[in-house]
């Protein structure tokens, strides 16, 4: 293990957490507990939607943060491609952010389907925003598949950065598709300027959901990108070890 640490400057025996991430994790868990309390106990049921409105406290934040995650992936990919240093750290951040984004988007689709069943009577509606979100989800699964194609770390970084920049072009299509196509989907309730209709505590719960899921996103991305760093170090060490073994074989013959 110590050889591994020396090989790539990463201590494999050291956990991925630091004092900062421990505080961040503790605060995130406290945030989740408060969100559960607010979402399930303190806030009232909606006049029209009943208790199903409580799904929104998870659905809306995960959707927003999933989009944010994909934007982070695009920015990190652009930083890798267009900065002269081509730092591999940007690639690791891009990959970690995309993984968490896919996780959040899966949660968005699942919670959205549950809410749709309770409110519309169907799990799925062929509505523009919903459908395009599903396409976006599959697109980033494709991005993650591209990251696992193999090759050197720089090859992975370059090709996945290009795919990320291609994929992020779909986000504006998702966001504005609700205005372009006729839609059954719930109109945006919070972002419509000057027309916020929610109860104060419900709005605060939604806001708290966004804060909590954002903290969780940062926490997970920090840990995940450190795990990717270690995975890369192990791969590099494996290659170095194999090369060294071949050299020794050559010397003994």
């Amino acid at each position, binding site marked *: 293990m110590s050889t591994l640490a020396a090989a790539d400057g990463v201590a494999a025996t050291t956990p991925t957490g630091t004092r900062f991430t421990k505080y961040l994790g503790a605060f995130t868990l406290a945030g989740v507990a408060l969100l559960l309390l607010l979402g399930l106990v303190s806030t009232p049921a909606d006049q029209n939607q009943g208790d199903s409105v409580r799904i929104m406290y998870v659905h809306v934040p995960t959707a927003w943060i999933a989009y944010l995650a994909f934007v982070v992936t695009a920015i990190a990919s652009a930083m890798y491609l267009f900065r002269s240093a081509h730092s591999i750290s940007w690639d690791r951040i891009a990959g970690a952010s995309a993984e968490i984004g896919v996780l959040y988007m899966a949660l968005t689709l699942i919670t959205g389907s549950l809410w749709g069943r309770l409110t519309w009577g169907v799990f799925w509606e062929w509505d523009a925003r919903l459908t395009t979100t599903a396409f976006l989800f599959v*697109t980033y699964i494709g991005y993650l598949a591209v990251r696992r194609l193999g090759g050197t770390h720089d090859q992975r970084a370059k090709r996945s950065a290009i795919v990320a920049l291609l994929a992020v072009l779909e986000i504006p299509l998702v966001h504005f598709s609700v205005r372009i196509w006729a839609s059954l989907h719930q109109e945006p309730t919070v972002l419509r300027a000057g027309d916020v209709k929610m109860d104060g505590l419900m709005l605060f719960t939604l806001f708290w959901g966004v804060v909590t899921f954002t903290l969780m996103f940062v926490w997970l991305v920090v840990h995940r990108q450190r795990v990717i760093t270690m995975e890369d170090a192990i791969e590099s060490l494996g290659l170095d070890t194999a090369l060294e073994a071949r050299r020794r074989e050559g010397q003994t013959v």
Partner: protein
Amino acid sequence: MNSVMTLAKAVATKDLRTEFRSRVVTNQVLPFAGVVLLLFAFAIDSDSTLARVSSGLVWMTTLFSMLLITQRSFDLETADGALDALRVAGADMRGVFVGKSGALIAQLLALDIVLFFLAVILFRVEPPAAGLGLLVVTTVLAAATLGLIGVTYGGLAAKAKGRETLLPLLILPVVAPVVIAATRATESALGVGGRKVSEGWPWTGLLGFTAVAFAVVGLFAFPALIEE
């Protein structure tokens, strides 16, 4: 720029000549497309519904065929290390992108002409003369967009292990707007469901925009994807 176009012409000619000699498109892809259309008819099993959805079926079949042609196009290049040889020779990869796109678009256009004839026979679609212009423009733009997207992502997956499964995963989400726009425009051209020809033209705008976007993106992305 001249060297790019010269190389593009050489690559396109080489691709089309290879296909003409091997007859893979005519002997394998075309029968595949025909069988897909037949199977769609078995699955839907209603004359009126078939006529209603015929436009979408033609474009879905084109899409499946495009995946096959794209994979074959890059299989030929990677089998002999032709792309690496071109790169080492200092060839401008934008020329390869333009050339391979041109060849793929030409093959898709030929395939679509046959598929529309098959649709007329099998699905009892009767294209009105008024919609012929819209149908031609839609087919050219949709084939161009599919070809450009196919070559951009084909270049990415060219050297990858398991590219047969990766390519559809990458391409299918991206081509959704093309399938929607091409289907709606074709429905208008054919007068399906009482649609008017004038309703179809805005969709060709979307197709044109997507084609231009992928032409620009492909010109920048393809060389970087190949050169790794």
